């Protein structure tokens, strides 16, 4: 287990302890009912997370990262931005894969607006995160609505990057 994972676990359980203490101060009933509520959520979510974790591994194995890098190639302009957005949503794996592909694309000559669009689209739509985390935890209507409302923004980010000429 790495140091950053340890820090995450400490902050996470620390927050649980602090909020648990606050609930306990409101009285035992509040503490018991919130723990029961949280545990019920947990039990409901475990099978969905199981499908997400195990399932997305197979989906990721079918989409090799090289394919994504190919899409991101050195083509530029708005077509490149569109490709970058699709590539961002289709990128399998965690943050290491997403950011590394962005770094490779920069090295092989991809334009920065395109790479910005890629990173933003990956943050907003990466299918593995949506399947694994967002859909199990949030009401499905919210997830689709959120994704639809986010659609314009990778393009906006690319446009801002083009206008200001940075990074």
């Amino acid at each position, binding site marked *: 287990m790495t140091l950053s994972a340890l820090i995450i676990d400490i902050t996470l359980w620390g927050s649980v302890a602090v*909020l648990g203490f606050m609930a306990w101060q409101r009285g035992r009933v509040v503490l018991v009912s919130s723990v029961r509520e949280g545990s019920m959520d*947990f039990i409901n979510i475990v099978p969905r997370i199981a499908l997400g974790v195990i399932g997305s591994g*197979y989906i990721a194995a079918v989409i090799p990262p090289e394919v994504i890098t190919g899409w991101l190639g050195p083509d530029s302009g708005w077509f490149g931005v569109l490709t970058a957005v699709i590539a961002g949503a289709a990128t399998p794996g965690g943050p290491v894969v997403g950011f590394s592909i962005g770094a490779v694309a920069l090295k092989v000559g991809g334009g920065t607006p395109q790479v910005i669009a890629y990173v933003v689209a990956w943050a907003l739509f990466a299918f593995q995160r949506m399947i694994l985390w967002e859909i199990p935890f949030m009401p499905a209507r919210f997830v689709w609505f959120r994704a639809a409302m986010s659609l314009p923004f990778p393009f*906006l980010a690319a446009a801002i990057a083009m206008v200001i000429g940075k990074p």
Partner: protein
Amino acid sequence: MIVIGALVAVCAGLVWRRDGIDGVLRILTHDLWLFGEIMPRVLAGCLLGGFIAEILPHDKVSRALGPNSGLKGLLIGTAFGAILPGGPFTAYPVAAALLTVGADFGATIAMVVSWTLIGYGRAVAWELPILGTEFTLWRIVISLPIPVLAGALGRFVFVRMYPKGEPEPPA
């Protein structure tokens, strides 16, 4: 979930054809490991969501983050998403809890989008070392307005899709 299950079955079949049963089992054991590793964090996230749902007063949340909270509600959602510690195992249960205690879709969208785009955890741990400081900082600066805009767009569309409020209570 049925769609996802079918997609998974198809992909597992493709892996089996390409790599044989060994490939299928290798991914399965790796993912079972990962599953065991994140389970405690998921539990912590669910407990956080449970506590937040009980502790935060409903009327205050709906005033601060509800449909009539205006720009201020979107800004609070954005700030909250940006400072929230932990990974997806905290962000989504907490967002779901906010929805149940009276935050509207707009403010919750602002929170989720802010967490994915300007949350410091991922940027510091992965983006800075891999993509470099200059790229990361500009990427974040460019992303700053997006949570508020996405939340405002969400609110704008939501009241036109459901003028009488939500068609059914949230799950």
